[in-house]
C-alpha cells in the first residue's frame, strides 16, 4: 500500500537521488551556478521532449522532431535578415504544419506514427538541406541580438532559456490540466474508444497533439539556433533519442494516458544529470555509452509505474 503511494513520486525521487550521488562525489556539481547552467543548456532538449510528451501521451511517437528542429535552425538563420523577429513565427508555423501533416497521415491514412513521423522527418530534413544550400550558416550577431537577444540573455543570474522553457512548461501544463483540449488528450490516451463514444473528435485531437509536438520541436530548434547563433541541417542531431528517453524516464510510458509535462521536466533533468555524472565520475570515454545504457535501464525500472500498464509489451 505504501509502495503504491510512493510510485507516482518515484521519478523525482530518482532525480534527487541522482543529484545527491553526483553532488556527494563532487560538491562542485551542487553549486547553484552549475545547476542553473546545466538546466539552461538542457532547455532546447527539454522543449523538444515537451512536445514529444504529447505524441507519447496519446500512445504514439514523433520521430520527426529532430528533423523539424534541424529545419527550423536553418529557417531561423535564413529568414532572420529579411524577417527579423517574424522569423520565429515562420519557424513555429512550419513546425506546426509538419506536425499536422504527421498527424494527418497517422490518423487519416492509418500509417503508424513510428513510420509516418519518420517519413515526414525525411521531408523536413530534405527541406533543411535545400534551404541551407547544404552548408552551415551563421547569424549576424547584431541582427540576432536585435531580434532574439531576449532568448539568450541573463536576468538575476538566470539565463533566459530557463524562462523560455519555464513559460512553455507552464503553458503546456495549463493546456494539459485546465483546458478541454488537455482533458480530451487524456481521454484519447487512456481510452480512445471511450473518447469516440463520448462524441469527441478523436482525429482532430490526435492531429493537434502531433501539431503541438511539431511546434515545440520547432521552438526547440529556434532556441538552439539562437543560442548557437546559426543553423545547419544537422545542428540538432542527437536530440531525438535523448528527448524520447527523457519522456520515458519521466514516467510517461508509451502506452499513453499516463504521465505528463511535469514528468518530462523531471525526465529531462534526469538525463542531464546522468550525462554530467559521466564527467564527474570520470567514466572512461569508451565506457560512457554502455554506462549510460545501464543507468538508463535502472532509471526506467525505477520510474515507471507498472500498475498503470495492463500488459507489458
Amino acid at each position: 500500500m505504501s509502495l503504491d503511494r510512493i510510485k507516482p513520486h518515484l521519478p523525482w525521487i530518482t532525480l534527487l537521488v541522482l543529484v545527491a550521488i553526483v553532488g556527494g562525489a563532487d560538491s562542485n556539481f551542487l553549486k547553484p551556478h552549475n545547476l542553473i547552467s546545466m538546466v539552461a543548456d538542457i532547455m532546447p532538449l527539454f522543449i523538444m521532449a515537451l512536445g514529444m510528451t504529447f505524441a507519447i501521451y496519446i500512445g504514439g511517437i514523433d520521430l520527426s522532431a529532430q528533423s523539424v528542429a534541424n529545419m527550423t535552425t536553418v529557417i531561423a538563420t535564413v529568414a532572420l535578415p529579411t524577417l527579423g523577429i517574424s522569423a520565429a513565427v515562420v519557424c513555429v508555423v512550419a513546425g506546426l504544419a509538419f506536425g499536422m501533416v504527421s498527424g494527418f497521415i497517422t490518423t487519416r491514412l492509418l500509417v503508424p506514427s513510428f513510420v509516418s513521423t519518420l517519413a515526414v522527418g525525411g521531408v523536413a530534413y530534405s527541406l533543411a538541406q535545400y534551404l541551407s544550400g547544404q552548408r552551415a550558416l551563421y547569424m549576424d550577431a547584431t541582427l540576432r541580438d536585435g531580434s532574439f537577444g531576449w532568448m539568450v540573455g541573463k536576468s538575476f543570474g538566470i539565463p533566459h532559456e530557463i524562462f523560455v522553457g519555464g513559460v512553455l512548461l507552464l503553458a503546456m501544463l495549463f493546456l494539459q490540466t485546465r483546458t478541454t483540449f488537455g482533458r480530451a488528450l487524456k481521454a484519447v490516451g487512456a481510452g480512445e474508444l471511450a473518447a469516440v463514444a463520448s462524441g469527441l473528435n478523436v482525429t482532430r485531437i490526435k492531429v493537434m497533439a502531433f501539431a503541438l509536438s511539431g511546434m515545440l520541436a520547432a521552438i526547440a530548434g529556434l532556441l538552439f539556433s539562437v543560442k548557437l547563433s546559426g543553423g545547419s541541417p544537422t545542428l540538432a542531431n542527437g536530440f531525438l533519442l535523448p528527448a524520447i528517453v527523457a519522456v520515458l524516464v519521466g514516467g510517461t510510458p508509451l502506452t499513453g494516458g499516463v504521465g505528463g509535462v511535469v514528468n518530462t521536466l523531471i525526465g529531462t533533468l534526469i538525463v542531464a544529470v546522468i550525462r554530467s555524472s559521466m564527467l564527474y565520475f570520470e567514466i572512461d570515454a569508451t565506457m560512457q555509452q554502455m554506462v549510460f545504457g545501464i543507468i538508463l535501464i535502472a532509471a526506467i525500472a525505477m520510474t515507471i509505474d507498472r500498475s498503470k500498464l495492463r500488459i507489458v509489451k
Partner: protein
Amino acid sequence: MNGILKREALVKWAPLIVLLVLILLFTVLEPRFFSVRNLARIAISSTPALMVALGVTFIIIMGSIDLSMEGTVSVTAVVFAFAFLALGGTVLSWAWLALPLAILVGAVVGFINGLVHVKLRIPSFMASLAMGFVGTGFALLLTGGDRIRVEDEVFRGLLTERWLGFPVMVYVAALFLLIGWFIQAKTTLGRNFYAVGGGEELAHASGLNVNRVRILGFTLAGMFYAVGALMAVGRIGIAETATGNNFMFMSITSVVVGGTALWGGIGGVWNTLVGVLIVNVIGNGMVVIGLPGYVQDAVLGLLVIVAVVLSTDRKSISFVK
C-alpha cells in the same frame, strides 16, 4: 463474402504489387535499373538489412518492439572479427568457429534484452532502446574505436564469389530467410509468436508461458541480428562500432512497409522480404535515376508512406497510434 475475399487478397498482395510498380517505375525512368547487375546490387545492399528485419519481425509479430538491433549488430560484428582473427583469420582454419560464436553472442545479447524486458517488466520499447545503448557502448569498449579488417578471401567470398550473377551472401540470406519462414510456419515457437501478438492475456490463460515465448523471441531476434552483422562484415570487410548504424529505423520501416502490423499478430517473413526490397529498391532507384541527394530523404519518406497506405488493411483496424 466474395467481396471480402477479394479485399483480403488485395491487401495480402498489396506490398508485392507496390514493389513491382516501383521496379517498373524505376525501369521506365532508367532502363539500366532492371539489369542483373543492378538487381544483384540491390540484393547485396538488402541482405544485412533483411537479416536484421527478419529478427525484428518476430518481435513485432508478438506486438512488442525491439530497438536494440544497432547495438547487437555492432557487438556481434566486433566479437566475430576479434575471434576470427585470433583463431587464424581464415575460414579454412579454426577461425570458422567465429561464425557460430557470433550467432551465439547475438543470442546472448538478445536473451539479456528479453530478460530485462520481461523480468524487470519494462516495456520493450524502453528496455531495448537502453539495451541498444549498452550494446553499442560495449562494442566501443571492445574496439576502443578501432576498425577491424577481415581480409580472408574465403570469408569475403560471400561478396566476391558469384553464382548466376548474384554473390554468395544473397544465397546465404535466402537460406536464413527459409529458416525464418520455417520457424514462423512450422514450429511451435513461431506459432506462439502469433498467439502472443493476437492476444497475450488469452494466450497466457491457455497455459502458454508467455514470458518464455517473449524471451525466446528476443533471443531468436538476436541470432538473426548476428547473421545480419556477419553479412555486413562480409559486405564491407570491416567490423567496427558503427557497423550497426542505421539499422534501427530502416529495419522497422521495412517491416511495416511489408505489411506486418506494429500492433502484432499479422504479417511474417515474406512480408518483411518484400518490405526490405521496397526500401532498398527506392534507395537504389533514387540514385540510379539521378535524384539530387538532398531530396532523397523526402522522396523516400513519401514513397514509404504511400507503400504503407496501400498495404494496410484499413477495415481491420479501429485506430492507429
